[in-house]
């Protein structure tokens, strides 16, 4: 798993090898990440969704208001133009308006008032023939009998037509009033300038892509696109149909819909009916554009989230790494401390036990040895001198005495291990002691093919010790070192150094080393790896007892098949 690989690279190799620290690291990292990121994601997404909802509401409300306003404006515009025509027809009557110069004056008045909105005026009879015309085109005798607006006007008395090209070949639409009450019935029609009308709609613009237009029921554009380019698929009959369906509820309501256009871009559409449902005012904008602020805040939120997540990850890794390393260090220290405490306590109680045992065993053994001596005395009697087993008796007695003395030696050592009283102490320079010992062991080291090297610190402080006891300690360590190097020999280094109130002697061999399992036990009385009868297992216990009594300590560092170093820390004497 890559996650684990990354984790493992975080730790020092010795910790990576320990499954406990690996899983500890993993758990801490996962915990930190989950407790930091989950709330962050939940809070951020809740806030974002909430924000998005209200922002969209706001945008929609804004659009609704905008479209509604324009819907009213346009409807009002159309109604007003219709009313203008209607009033003109009612006020002036057929006869006067048939007079082209009168009609022209009326057109001039309208144009004065409304600018170029009204392009021309015409009076049409019931058959569709134009009786009078005022305007820039030559349409005096035009026939409108086949025009849609004409039929509608005849039917329902007034009309606002869709945009069409008509006879003049330019897009326009007609506002017409049918005066059916007069005889003969006649129609007053006006042409509304397409551009002027389009401007009403083209003014509606928001953002980069906002655009407004009007569609009729066939989906045809009723406005010119103006300066802003129309979307490619407008007019689009299908889209128009969909919008019409969507808008079919009609009324004053503004409908807002989100739809994808043919290029897959999402657009927001706001629509409202005009002209009693004949036309549809549509405002459309790319969703991206409409919600640009929203997208920007989403982007900012995403960036913050990403940075936050990255920071959480970094922190999780760094913190966990620190915690695990510290834990490992603390564990290590605890382990060492635990060992040391156990050792001191253990050795103290073992010492008391050993002393007790030694005392109890001493007397019986002494009696046994002496009784054996007594038997030896008696064997001198003449009556035994001729016994055929005399020699065997003597041998057995000698053996009893030998073994008894061995017991005594052991108990003697045990007692010296446990003994609390200080032997006579004197200030000495350890270097001299070491040199003496090297000379003393020369025979044995030579025999064992051991090369002895000394590295003595010349500025070594004096220590207050019992020379004989300290000799015992170092002889023991030297003998152990020689034993550890076995038959093939090796190198024995004796070095001294001063360290913070201690004179330290390192006894280093290139022997077989001490397995980790044994390291804790080497100072235990009777712990020995030597063959039965070859060692009592008391040597290091006694060393420990002596050094401990001095207020010093012994440390061991050992690697199997490489060698062992015993470091003896002896406190320097107070006067030094």
């Amino acid at each position, binding site marked *: 798993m890559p996650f684990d690989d990354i984790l493992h690279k975080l730790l020092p190799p010795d910790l990576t090898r320990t499954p406990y620290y690996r899983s500890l690291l993993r758990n801490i990292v996962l915990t930190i990440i989950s407790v930091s990121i989950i709330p962050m994601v939940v809070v951020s997404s809740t806030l974002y969704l909430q924000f998005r909802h209200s922002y969209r509401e706001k945008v929609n409300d804004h659009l609704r208001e905008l479209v509604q306003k324009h819907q009213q404006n346009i409807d009002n515009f159309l109604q007003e133009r219709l009313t203008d025509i209607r009033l003109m027809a009612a006020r002036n009557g057929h006869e006067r308006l048939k007079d082209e110069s009168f009609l022209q004056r009326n057109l001039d008045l309208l144009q004065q008032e409304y600018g170029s909105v009204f392009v021309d005026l015409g009076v049409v009879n019931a058959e569709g023939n134009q009786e009078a015309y005022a305007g820039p085109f030559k349409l005096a005798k035009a026939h409108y009998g086949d025009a849609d607006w004409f039929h509608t006007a005849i039917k329902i008395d007034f009309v606002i037509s869709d945009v069409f090209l008509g006879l003049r070949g330019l897009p326009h639409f007609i506002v017409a009033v049918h005066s059916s009450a007069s005889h003969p019935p006649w129609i007053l029609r006006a042409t509304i300038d397409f551009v002027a009308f389009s401007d009403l709609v083209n003014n509606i613009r928001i953002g980069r892509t906002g655009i407004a237009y009007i569609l009729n029921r066939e989906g045809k554009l009723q406005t010119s696109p103006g300066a802003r380019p129309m979307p490619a698929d407008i007019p689009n009959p299908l889209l128009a149909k969909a919008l019409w369906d969507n808008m079919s509820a009609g009324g004053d309501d503004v409908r807002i819909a989100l739809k994808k256009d043919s290029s897959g871009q999402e657009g927001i559409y706001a629509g409202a009916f005009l002209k009693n449902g004949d036309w549809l005012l549509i405002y459309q904008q790319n969703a991206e554009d409409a919600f640009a602020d929203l997208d920007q805040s989403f982007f900012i939120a995403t960036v913050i989230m990403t940075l936050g997540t990255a920071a959480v990850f970094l922190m999780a890794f760094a913190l966990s790494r620190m915690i695990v390393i510290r834990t490992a260090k603390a564990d290590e220290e605890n382990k060492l401390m635990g060992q040391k405490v156990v050792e001191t306590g253990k050795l103290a109680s073992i010492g008391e036990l050993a002393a007790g045992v030694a005392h109890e065993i*001493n007397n019986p053994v002494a*009696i046994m*040895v*002496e*009784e054996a*001596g*007594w038997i030896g*005395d008696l064997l001198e009697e003449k009556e035994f001198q001729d016994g055929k087993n005399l020699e065997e008796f003597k041998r057995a007695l000698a053996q009893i005495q030998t073994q008894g003395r061995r017991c005594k030696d052991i108990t003697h050592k045990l*007692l010296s291990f446990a003994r609390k009283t200080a032997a006579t102490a004197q200030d000495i320079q350890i270097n001299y002691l070491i040199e003496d010992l090297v000379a003393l062991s020369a025979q044995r080291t030579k025999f064992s093919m051991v090369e002895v090297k000394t590295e003595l610190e010349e500025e070594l402080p004096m220590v207050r010790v019992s020379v004989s006891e300290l000799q015992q300690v170092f002889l023991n360590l030297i003998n152990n070192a020689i034993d550890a190097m076995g038959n093939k020999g090796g190198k024995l280094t004796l070095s001294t150094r001063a360290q913070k109130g201690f004179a330290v002697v390192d006894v280093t061999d290139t022997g077989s080393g001490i397995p980790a399992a044994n390291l804790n036990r080497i100072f235990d009385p009777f712990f020995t790896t030597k063959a039965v009868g070859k060692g009592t297992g008391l040597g290091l216990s006694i060393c420990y007892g002596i050094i401990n009594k001095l207020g010093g300590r012994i440390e061991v560092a050992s690697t199997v098949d490489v060698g062992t170093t015993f470091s003896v820390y002896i406190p320097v004497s107070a006067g030094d």
Partner: protein
Amino acid sequence: MVSATQDETGRLRLLLVDDEVGFTTVMAKRLTRRNMEVTMAFSGTQGIQTLRVKQFDVAVLDLKMEDMDGIEVLKIFKIMDPNMPVIMLTGHGSEKSANEGIQHGAYDYLTKPYEFTELLEKIRQAAISIKR
């Protein structure tokens, strides 16, 4: 074999004061076999009582007994018979009390558990030193 004796048989008269009966008994037997007249006392009191009724050439006195402090017994011995050498028996690591004994006139000391030959040697030396 022993030069300075006051026994009519020429044997050295030895007082062994030690409450360790088993050890003392075998030592007494072995010493007797080496031409000594050995009297055993198994407590300080018993030792003093024995010295009251009989004279001895050498005494061997355990310093650590149940009933009395060996040093006190030594002092009394020295009052009763100032010329009698007293060999003290001390426990392991009790060199301090041995020194104290020497100061109070003890001839020498042996550290327990001692061996027969050591004891024999000390007794012989003590016997030679007798100034009577």
